[in-house]
């Protein structure tokens, strides 16, 4: 087949293997038994994540994030991780603070949206010590979807003609039916994913309320998946409304019940983000030394997520954030 159109390729590195047969070989031996998977955050991170792995985090920035798992990754000193930066903001702050990352698929990880930029994430990315490959939010979504579908690539119509393409690892292809030029995105099969959900049963059958971002695909695409959940619910409840199941058990390796587990992030219908605490991060990050101390106190020297939560106001703080989430002006009466 002669091809008069020159097809371009992004020049940057691909940090994960898109091969669908290689992924299938992994999934072939992954357990599909519906067994009780309840464990601790410590155990889940210890057994399911190893140095050098490619990781991805559910939710969106500071919304519905598995904070307990992120802290524990830092606490256990995991190193040389590659990270899918698909609007990953507070998650990036935690992982960068712990020095856990050396490769980054970057779409949006420095800004905390309307809150401003993270000085430490920015320093890390400007330092040259982290390898960067450019993508966009949609490309990372579609890279996960390609994997969830069991493919090695998907075509799409964005990023063509830009430097975002030039510094990605995408490739141009032609539609065999129309001749139209497309960007082809390599499937992204993360080694490890952590997702915080509203409710799941002990087997990992999970429900998410509100916007789901890319988590349906993320759970399916990832080789090992940890769920933290606001609450564990009976399997009967899952079976009562099977079309509401968002993640089925066979995707999931570990379940940990972590109420308030998205703190300081927003958990829809549960509690709003702690904007004061997030502002404290952005302020203290300006001075690397101050940030180191803050990070040690908040994360490395706390034994678990509950100690961290207690340090920042505990359940009383959550009740205030719940009032904000519920658009109640003031919860003094409670």
């Amino acid at each position, binding site marked *: 087949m002669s091809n008069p159109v020159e097809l371009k390729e992004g020049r940057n590195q691909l940090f994960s293997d898109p091969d669908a047969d290689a992924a299938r070989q992994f999934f072939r031996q992954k357990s599909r038994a519906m067994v009780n998977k309840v464990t601790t955050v410590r155990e889940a991170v210890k057994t399911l994540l190893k140095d050098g792995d490619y990781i991805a985090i559910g939710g969106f920035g500071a919304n519905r994030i598995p904070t307990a798992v992120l802290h524990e990754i830092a606490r256990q000193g995991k190193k040389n991780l590659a990270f899918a930066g698909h609007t990953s903001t507070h998650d990036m702050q935690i992982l960068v603070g712990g020095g856990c990352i050396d490769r980054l698929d970057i779409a949006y990880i420095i800004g905390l949206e309307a809150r401003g930029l993270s000085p430490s994430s920015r320093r890390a990315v400007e330092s040259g010590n982290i390898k960067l490959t450019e993508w966009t939010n949609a490309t990372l979504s579609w890279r996960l979807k390609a994997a969830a579908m069991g493919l090695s690539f998907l075509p799409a119509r964005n990023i063509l003609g830009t430097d975002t393409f030039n510094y990605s690892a995408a490739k141009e292809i032609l539609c065999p039916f129309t001749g139209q030029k497309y960007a082809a995105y390599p499937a992204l099969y993360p080694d490890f994913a952590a997702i915080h959900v509203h409710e799941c049963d002990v087997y990992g059958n999970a429900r998410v309320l509100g916007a789901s971002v*890319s988590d349906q695909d993320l759970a399916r695409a990832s080789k090992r998946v940890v769920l933290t959940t606001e609450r564990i619910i009976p399997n009967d409840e899952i079976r009562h409304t099977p079309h509401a199941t968002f993640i089925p058990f066979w995707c999931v390796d570990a379940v940990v019940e972590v109420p308030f587990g998205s703190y300081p992030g927003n958990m829809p219908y549960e509690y709003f983000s702690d904007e004061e605490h997030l502002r404290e991060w952005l302020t203290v990050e300006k001075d690397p030394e101050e940030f180191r101390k803050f990070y040690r106190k908040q994360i490395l020297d706390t034994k678990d997520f509950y100690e961290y939560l207690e340090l920042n106001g505990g359940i009383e703080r959550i009740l205030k954030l719940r009032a904000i989430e519920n658009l109640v002006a003031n919860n003094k009466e409670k």
Partner: protein
Amino acid sequence: MADYNPMELMICVAARNLEDGATVVVGTGAPCAAAMLAQKTHSPNLTIMFEAGGVAPFLPSMPISVGDSRTFHKAILASSMPDVMETCQRGMVDYTFLGGAQIDMYGNINSTMIGDNHARPKVRFPGSGGANDLASLCWRTMMMTPQDAKRFTEKCDFITSPGYLQGGNSRYEAGLPKGTGPYRIITNMAIMGFDEISKRMKVLSVNPGYDREDIQANCGFELMWADRLTDTEPPHADELRILREQVDPHRYIIGR
């Protein structure tokens, strides 16, 4: 000077471009304010969408994240990022708004970095997020930005999001969907569109208090000018009242 600030002007002008029955994907800040203002004035049936999955919410206040609970408060749909982006890719989304550190004469936008070494940039910005996606896939892209000669640059250090690329038909030859592209650049000084053939930036109307010389002096490339250059209609009292009282009562955006 009249009783409004440049941000208020830009938001009012942007809102007027969002007709009733249209769809728009917005981020936080000024674009969201413009969409809310349009909805509360002439476009009650404007569908506001957020890239994390929220569609057509009753926005109780300005979201702080395009994925926070506000973006799907009493919404029609709390869906997923791929669903929203695919809705754009399918051609069902009319408008979006972008921001950026640099913009060139073809409306290409840099929100990634300053410098010439991608691995070690002089300054790193947030990067694309969903910006490239929305600029590629929505029909019409708008931008609200203060205007100066550094930001309006001959050449972006990095093209994060596509405008008309190298002008002419280059955007569509690159494979981007036909008929899409930058539509309005709304600055403190002027409103720009793009020439139909060359796809170069063209001034359509001049904001109160500025003239052609100001506008060209604060632009790093040569602007084109509409044959019928008009004066930008300043914000109406009604627009300002609704913007200040209902859209952004805490002045998060218009107080900047």
